[in-house]
């Protein structure tokens, strides 16, 4: 007689969303896996309508406390496209520098406090810190330097306020950026050490080829622009994003699932996708370390995303350092523009993957329509499919252990909904189960 087993993680708490996980097993058969996001929709796209376009960078930054720069960058690029404005190289470099800060703080946090504990059976970053104080402290220092850069360049670390359509409200002084050089020199070496550390973790053998999507720029590691490419050979202009990818609603999630339009298939965005598609565009230091640790690409082992993050932190410090050293103040810090009817879109690379914005604007400078596709909605379906592949390896364990292992896989994505740290309230609902009728933990 088959046994129906239901594992429910009620709350993958906090961050930019609230979600849970429900797994239904019938004997050895996986009947259903649902990564459910039940937080009420936040309607950002709706309440941007009618607002002045200048408000968009600051409002969209509020979508996420960890990656506000990604929302700001995507917004300003899309709006500038609609306005026909093309910021010059100085603004472009400062924007990359700002993005470096965000990658550093976001990846530093995830690597050391969110994902690393999973490799040591630690219940939290605090528990990990008791075993690896030097390494965790190094991670916190890396994060701190990322935040400091955001403060200097963005006005503050959380939800920066200095990003403007056309550039920056105020360009930093040379001294302000020169002061950061010592900490970035330290950070580059620390990022190398951190990447070597995580590369030595014991990774599950879980190579799962799938479609991976990221931006690709001819000359640089992708942050603010590029074509949308994939490991299966897709290569389209960002303007064609909505032709290639479509969002759909599923009953168990208030966040839309994003799929490939042609065959409604899932895909993966994030640091693994970026590295797989852009390894040759990493800085020399990151390439050298990738070779040294034997990081082979394409890599489809989701757990190794922590290594990809490490390599990207190296790149961010390396490139950030170069920009800091070369920086000369410039004027104007933002380009003038005239309102006009128009529409523009842009995609950038948030720490956790490609993010797409499109805006339609009116000739009085108001938002008529907004569309925002964050990384997590693009990864949701792929996470569910990965769990289906992962479950046969872990479902023989207790419900709690099975849930822990599933969370571990989810955390490797660094989804904004996950918040990763030990957020579980587990209820187990067993039917025809010799282990007991109903258990609540």
């Amino acid at each position, binding site marked *: 007689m088959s046994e129906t087993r239901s594992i429910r993680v009620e709350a993958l*708490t*906090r*961050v930019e969303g609230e979600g849970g996980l429900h797994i239904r097993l019938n004997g050895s058969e996986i009947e259903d896996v649902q990564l459910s996001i039940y937080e009420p929709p936040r309607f950002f796209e709706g309440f941007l309508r009618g607002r002045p376009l200048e408000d968009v960078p600051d409002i969209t930054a509020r979508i996420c*406390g*960890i990656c506000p720069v990604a929302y700001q960058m995507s917004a300003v690029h899309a709006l500038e496209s609609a306005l026909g404005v093309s910021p010059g190289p100085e603004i472009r470099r400062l924007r990359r520098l700002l993005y470096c800060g965000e990658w550093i703080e976001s990846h530093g*946090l995830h690597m050391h*406090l*969110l994902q690393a504990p999973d490799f040591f059976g630690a*219940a*939290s*970053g*605090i*528990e990990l*810190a*008791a075993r690896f*104080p030097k390494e*965790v*402290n190094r991670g*916190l*220092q890396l*994060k*701190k330097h990322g*935040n*400091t850069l955001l403060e200097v360049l963005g006005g503050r*670390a*959380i939800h920066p306020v200095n990003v403007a359509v056309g550039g920056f409200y105020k360009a930093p002084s040379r001294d302000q950026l020169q002061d950061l050089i010592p900490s970035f020199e330290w950070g580059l070496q620390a990022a190398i050490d951190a990447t070597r550390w995580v590369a030595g973790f014991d990774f599950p053998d879980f190579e799962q080829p799938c479609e991976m999507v990221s931006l690709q720029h001819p000359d640089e590691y992708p942050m603010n622009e590029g074509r949308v490419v994939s490991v299966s050979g897709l290569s389209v202009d960002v303007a064609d994003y909505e032709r290639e990818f479509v969002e759909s609603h599923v009953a168990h999630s208030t966040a839309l699932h994003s799929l490939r339009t042609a065959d409604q298939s899932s895909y993966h965005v994030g640091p693994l996708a970026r590295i797989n598609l852009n390894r040759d565009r990493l800085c020399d230091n990151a390439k050298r370390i990738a070779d040294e640790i034997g990081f082979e690409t394409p890599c489809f082992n989701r757990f190794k995303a922590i290594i990809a993050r490490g390599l990207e932190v190296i790149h961010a410090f390396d490139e950030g350092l170069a920009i800091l050293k070369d920086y000369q103040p410039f004027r104007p810090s933002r380009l003038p523009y005239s309102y006009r009817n128009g529409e523009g879109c842009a995609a950038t690379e948030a720490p956790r993957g490609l993010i797409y914005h499109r805006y339609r604007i009116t000739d009085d400078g108001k938002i008529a329509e907004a569309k925002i596709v964050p990384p997590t909605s693009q990864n949701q379906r792929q996470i569910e499919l990965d769990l289906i592949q992962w479950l046969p390896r872990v479902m023989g364990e207790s419900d709690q252990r099975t849930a822990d292992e599933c969370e571990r896989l989810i955390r490797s994505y660094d989804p904004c909904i996950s*918040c*990763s*740290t*030990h*957020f579980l309230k587990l209820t187990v609902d067993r039917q025809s189960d010799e282990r007991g009728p109903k258990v609540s933990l």
Partner: protein
Amino acid sequence: MSDTKRILIMGLGSPHGDDQAGWLTVRRIADRCDQRADIVVRTAVIPMDLLDWLDDIDILHVCDACQRMPSNDRYHRIDWKSRQGSTVRNDNHPSVISAGREMNLLTQRRGSHDFGLVEVLALAEATCGLPEFVTIWAIEGSGFQPGDEISEVTRTAAVDCADKLLTELQADQCMKNP
């Protein structure tokens, strides 16, 4: 070599109702301590920010809102380090759990990725180290909904809390410079 101790006073909060209590408290302190070079006052939304601000700090005061507790006091002073003992190793440590329970709803505030104030203090202890003295000032509130104004009860408690902390700061200064 100077024996001046560097003091960080951090207000945790948000713009929502009584959750403004921590910010209100430290702003009142900032207004009255602007001549004190040894005091740094900062506001934050998430406790994790604290980890970036601890360099060279000898004394830390954290002002934060908490939910009503069954007592007549409207704000509470908690000496973290003396309550914790000398070393906190992890969040399974009995003393941390005890403190968490005692502080009750301070721990309910969740910062980035579930790092509440208790977790952040424990993390700092385990990594970069905490300042020599850590005190938490918990100001009671009851309404924390977006768009709410701060209640008069909590506003008064925040002012009283700020004045109490100011008195301590001034007393410490007088002891150093009689």
